[in-house]
């Protein structure tokens, strides 16, 4: 149960597994049908699977795609509800988001709020603007994580200080290589976010 040991280990194992799986899948998919045919498709792995002869491969890939979506959805509900909790604690959002359920010890208000919004987006559709700018805002968010890691006291740092610097450089390099309209919509969204935060703080 020692989180100071298990969490860093879990992070490293997860990243290494992800690298191996991503690399193997892309290697096989590109090797089978080529990058051009993959780029033309909305579901490139299904195109690659279409050339395979192993039994049930099409079914397996669609099932894997479905569970991949499910996994993201589960972890988004989990993550967003904890973000709401943290923002409630810091007064960036109303205080009722701080509430923890006495029996299950989960931030139930945040979970239900998150799910209702996700349901609404699913039924009504999302703002294309938000989706388009998401790549940029996510990269910015990871840049901030790297900055926070740099500011951490030395005794709390598990690895070399070079890691957050490399991370920051990587995030910034990736974000500037995005198409300009993505960057512009990201900046506009950020400005709007700061506006809302200012309003919440005023209330």
């Amino acid at each position: 149960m020692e989180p100071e040991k298990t969490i860093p280990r879990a992070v490293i194992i997860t990243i290494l597994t992800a690298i191996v799986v991503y690399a193997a899948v892309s290697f096989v998919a590109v090797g089978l049908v080529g990058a051009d045919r993959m780029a033309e498709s909305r579901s490139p792995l299904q195109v690659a699977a279409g050339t395979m002869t192993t039994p049930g491969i099409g079914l397996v890939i669609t099932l894997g795609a479905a569970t991949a979506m499910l996994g993201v959805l589960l972890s988004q509900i989990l993550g967003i509800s904890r973000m709401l909790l943290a923002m409630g604690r810091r007064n960036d959002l109303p205080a009722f988001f701080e509430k923890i359920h006495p029996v299950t010890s989960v931030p139930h208000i945040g979970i239900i709020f998150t799910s209702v919004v996700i349901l609404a987006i699913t039924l009504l559709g999302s703002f294309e603007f938000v989706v388009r700018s998401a790549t940029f805002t996510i990269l910015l968010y990871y840049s901030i994580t790297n900055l926070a890691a740099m500011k951490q006291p030395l005794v709390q740092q598990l690895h070399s200080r070079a890691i957050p610097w490399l991370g920051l450089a990587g995030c910034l390099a990736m974000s500037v290589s995005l198409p300009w309209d993505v960057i512009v919509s990201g900046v506009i969204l950020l400005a709007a976010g700061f506006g809302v935060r200012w309003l919440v703080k005023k209330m």
Partner: protein
Amino acid sequence: MDVLLSKLSAAGIVAIGFGSYVHELIPVFSPMVYSVSAIVLLTIANLLGIKKAGTVNMVIVFVTLLSLVYFVFSGLGALDTNNFTPFAPFGVLGIAEASAILFFAFTGYARIAPWPKR
């Protein structure tokens, strides 16, 4: 605030993606029925406590990984090396842009474009 909005939108999009994939597998109900059921069930899993949510996540990740491993082994025998040339035709910039988009994929957002419209 913006990350919140991005994540919520992404979650909505993966819910739609899930619905359309399951509809491909079991075309009994409309995709939206599957999307909404997934959101409701995963909300319940989250409300039951972090341990239950963790177990559900384990099962989901296991099935996903298993399907990818099956994919890799199914394809390994039939690779065509010609498909690897030209290698990185857009140079470092191409790799940087692809990485940025993949970064998005890491949080599961990549499915924005690929979910099949059928």
